[in-house]
């Protein structure tokens, strides 16, 4: 998930810090996956459950939902990083 917030390389992290960082990275991927499941099933699977299998329409909807969900994540993270950079720039100049 390093594409989301970049990885600010700090010199010589301790063992506990390294484990915590790796844990946080995994936690973040896992959160994003859980949200994706929650969001895309609500968007694509109608709550009547007439059949046990995914039909064609549902399958295609799920695939597109994943693609759009990633695209939104990239856009939002770019936007927030842009604003953070701007603020830092302003602070540095002051």
């Amino acid at each position, binding site marked *: 998930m*390093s594409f989301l917030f970049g990885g600010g390389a700090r010199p010589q992290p301790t*063992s506990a810090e390294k*484990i915590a960082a*790796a844990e946080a990275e995994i936690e973040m991927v896992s959160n994003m996956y859980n949200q994706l499941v929650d969001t895309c*099933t609500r968007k*694509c699977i109608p709550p009547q459950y007439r059949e046990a299998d*995914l039909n064609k329409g549902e399958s295609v909807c799920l695939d597109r939902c994943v693609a759009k969900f*990633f695209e939104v994540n990239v856009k939002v993270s770019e936007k927030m*990083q842009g604003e953070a950079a701007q603020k830092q720039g302003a602070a540095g100049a002051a």
Partner: protein
Amino acid sequence: MSGMDMLTPAEQRELQNRMERKQMKDFMNMYSNLVQRCFNDCVTDFTSKSLQGKEEGCVMRCVDKFLKSSERLGERFQEQNAQMAQQGGMGMGR
């Protein structure tokens, strides 16, 4: 590419232990979300205290569909994640 590359074997073992506990917890969360969603969508009649045949069928199909849907979303998620990592350079830090 990822913070995990830098871990020593001992650190990797500790991380793995934590991940196993996390997996157990994730499974339980997945299970209880599944029950809650299928109960909510399928059980709507409270004039009797035992599950009606129609409700039970709905719950079973709901579980099937949700598991298949999660599996498909997981595959797409991994593909997108891999593609992102390859393209690199969307985030700030690179």
